[in-house]
């Protein structure tokens, strides 16, 4: 069974016929070729697949592609404008918030969601908003510094 969907992905309008049983993460990676969004677990445990749907963080690995009909989907690829890294991307770059980088797209999208709601988060706010995202490498200190760097950059 396939169903037509109309949505925007990173601001670009798209129309596709997608199978009912297709997950958003596969639609992004396989149909559109946006492989920034990762799959790190077998369901909802790790946050590597976090994207923004209608501005809210969401696990692309637990979301049906058809369920995004009519909505705006944003992935890590959408943050860069005319080749320039966004504040949160620069934060992860400057503060070494990524090691192997596998969790990073999900971390960045969770942080992006936070910064849009709360432009000057406390450390506690950052920890709370990113608690669905697990990193195998960094120990989290650098990730928190990365988000703080972005918040400062945005305040300027």
């Amino acid at each position: 069974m396939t169903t037509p969907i109309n949505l925007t992905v990173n601001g670009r309008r798209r129309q596709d016929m997608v199978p009912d049983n297709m997950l958003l993460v596969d639609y992004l990676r396989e149909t559109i070729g946006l492989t920034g969004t990762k799959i790190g677990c077998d369901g909802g445990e790790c946050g590597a697949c976090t994207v923004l749907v209608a501005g809210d963080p969401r696990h692309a690995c637990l979301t049906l592609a058809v369920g995004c009909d009519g909505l705006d989907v944003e992935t890590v690829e959408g943050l860069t404008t005319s080749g320039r890294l966004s504040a949160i991307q620069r934060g992860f770059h400057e503060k070494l918030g990524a090691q192997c980088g596998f969790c990073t797209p999900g971390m960045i999208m969770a942080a992006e969601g936070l910064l849009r709601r709360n432009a000057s988060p406390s450390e506690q706010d950052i920890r709370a908003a990113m608690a669905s995202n697990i990193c195998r490498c960094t120990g989290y200190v650098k990730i928190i510094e990365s988000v703080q760097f972005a918040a400062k950059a945005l305040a300027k």
Partner: protein
Amino acid sequence: MEYLPKFQLFRPLSVEQAAALYAENDGARFLAGGTDMIVNMRRGIETPAALIDLSQIPELGDIHEENDGMRIGAAVTLEQLAAHAAIARDYPAVAEAAAAIAGPTHRAYGTVGGNLCLDTRCIFYNQSEWWRSSNAYCLKHRGEICHVAPGGQACFAAYSGDLAPALLVHDARIELIGPERRRDIPLGDFFRDDGMDHLAIEKGEILASVMLPKASAGAPSAYAKSRIRGAIDFPVAGLAALLTLRGGGIEKLRIALTAVNPRPLVVDGTDAFNGAEVNDNMLDKLAELASSQAKPMTTTTVSPWYRRRVIGALARRLVARLAEIE
């Protein structure tokens, strides 16, 4: 690629349409946020022929005040519930429980209805197809024996939703809409003590809303859970308490448990404390009463012995906090 098993997806716009679609499609299941259903489908535990997505039904999506209390639609997200000012003021245990579920991303789209209808959990069950097949599956799904209690024919998978105990101490009721009738029952009657069949829901019924009665609004209440990590993890034991005092004695005391039995449970016998003062001796007795009714089995990585102890400790801690003696 992570394709799920094949199914047909429906996205009805009303409860009536959803109920009709359920009746017309053999093997249909409801889908809300999908944070339990899609996980279980990816693991081969659920193989619905049709999924009926409840997220497009506006009437399920709001919280509003009615004459006799607060009505919470089944499709309200956990984040909305946790952030609702009147709920946090009048039914604090409910807001605390909602805020303690999974992690922030799960709460942004996981729903109240999905939380109450959550499948029961067990370390031998919530595993990948590959893991379960190499362990010859288990009674709850496809297998012949229960690895937790191999002699018997029962399943002890634990009901592990956080909201139910908090709603139970506030005497919540639920509204169920089925193909033939609409009914309104106490939340306590929704659950059965059977890990394989824990919901007293009729085929095709939709949990439409939860009603928190005015009579219990404003009664001090609290929820706490023990979990492996500070976020994401399900409770290994969870407890809600509600306490009102009058003239230095207990007027009303209600305790409810989760994650230690196949159903969430209101602790029986707390009325015996009516009139008593909240003190160390009373709290010891309460801790013993609560932990004696918790019947955890080896369904988590944490031992049953520890989870029973946690129930006693949480009962003590929350009631002391509510009585403001700590």
